[in-house]
């Protein structure tokens, strides 16, 4: 669960990225976070992943109070999240299997756990035959599936996808979004940051719209209302 209570974030250069944001995302939800460039979406994601700290208000993520989280607790908190990026961020010199095992080893998983979990996750994202391929040998859609598999491999409570379809064609984008929806149906909370109006409107999920550091709409079963922003 994520809770933002009157959250403010002002950077050292004086930029006020968030101005009193209130958002609550419960376990098991699928939420789109939309808004134009510079609206504060990235700041919101960075606050969730504890890359930055708020300058005002309270942020709670999966039971961790990020206002007074200790450096030692940050890795524990991040293990409850799986993050997917627009540019995939796969390690080019590692195979698909190694990219996943790398993520599992990062939290101290044993070889036995790797052997058990990775094939299951690869099957879930439809890449069970491509474990020995390098990222450069895969299409963009497949690379994003690997990134999703890596986000899932440590069995997080929540997936945060930051523009996951930004580098994909419409068909691959739809496939990725359907995969995320399926993951959500399996019980994982999903937060998708996107600009893709058609995709957002097609899935009929909760949509939180942010503009100029403020949440201007939060509608369940909502849509990307371009006129609003």
């Amino acid at each position, binding site marked *: 669960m994520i809770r933002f209570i009157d959250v403010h974030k002002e950077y050292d250069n004086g930029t006020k990225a968030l101005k009193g944001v209130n958002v609550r995302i419960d376990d098991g939800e699928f939420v789109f976070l939309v808004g134009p460039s510079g609206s504060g979406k990235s700041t919101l994601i960075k606050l969730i992943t504890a890359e930055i700290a708020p300058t005002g208000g309270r942020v709670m993520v999966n039971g961790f109070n990020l206002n007074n989280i200790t450096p030692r607790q940050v890795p*524990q908190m*991040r293990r409850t*999240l799986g993050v997917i990026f627009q540019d995939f961020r796969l390690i080019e010199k590692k195979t698909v299997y190694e990219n996943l095992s790398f*993520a599992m080893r990062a*939290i*101290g*998983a*044993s070889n036995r756990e790797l052997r058990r979990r990775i094939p299951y996750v690869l099957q879930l994202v439809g890449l069970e035959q491509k474990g020995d391929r390098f990222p450069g040998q895969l299409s963009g859609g497949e690379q994003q599936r690997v990134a999703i598999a890596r986000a899932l491999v*440590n069995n997080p409570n929540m997936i945060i996808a930051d523009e996951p379809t930004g580098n994909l064609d419409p068909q691959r984008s739809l496939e990725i979004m359907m995969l995320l929806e399926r993951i959500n149906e399996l019980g994982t909370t999903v937060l998708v940051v996107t600009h893709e109006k058609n995709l957002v409107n097609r899935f009929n999920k909760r949509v939180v719209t942010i503009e100029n550091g403020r949440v201007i709409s939060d509608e369940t079963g909502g849509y990307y209302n371009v006129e609003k922003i």
Partner: protein
Amino acid sequence: MSRKFNAGYYVSEGFHSIFTHGFMSFAAVCMIVACLIIMGSFTLLAVNLDNTLGDLESENEMLVYIDDALTQDEARMLQPKLAQVDNVAQLTFVTKEQAMADYKAKHNDNIAVLKDLPDEALRDRYRVHVYDIERMAETQAALEQVPDVAWVRAAIEIADGFVMVRNIATAVALVLIGILLVISLFIIANTIKLATFYRREEIAIMKMCGATDGFIEWPFVVEGMLLGLTGALIAFFAQWGLYQMVAKFAVQGNGLSLVNMISYSSMATTILAIFCGVGVFIGVVGSLFAIRKFLQV
């Protein structure tokens, strides 16, 4: 999931990184070798100088002249009292006859010299060697306080000269070793920093997956340790060759009997241990310095 200290993984990652960034690893090892050899050379110079000075110091004795009024037996009885004086290492009683014989032998039966022979030459005396020549003046004063001691002759200026030379040599060696250590740390830190820079994306991914700083640091620490150890081993053998060459030159070249070089093999274990210790220290501390910046994610 089970959480454990995965030493095998850290070592394998450390090894892998060394070969992935082969040129930088080679450069780092070369710099460690160079720094250790320069450090080692100065240290060995200081050790040999210390040893030579030690030999010369041990020959620097004091003479304690006994009051003429005492018989030879009474003079011998003074030995326990003199031995109790702090810093006295060794006492040798010399009778006035023996002293005269030594004197004549030394001056080759020169009649003119014997005519002007000073009175004290005929006194019974003790040759005294001390533990610490820095405290020679203090020991001289203490010996003069012992009843029935007429006076004490000590070459304080020579002793002070030895002490000054030794102290300067030690200070110069220490300063140079310190400077070279800092330079080595800087170089290895930059090498590891470069390796870390290449892998910043991996580090960011690991951090985002919930890896602890320790988990990320260990492979770099192992890498630094291995680079340091490799450099130390190469430096040890190179230093050996260099030392043998210098020792041969020192003996053959000027035939100075004063210079008594210690054999490398007698110090080999200590040198190897020090080189490995310094190499590993440079590698590990350098790695930790280098990686700190990249952990701020």
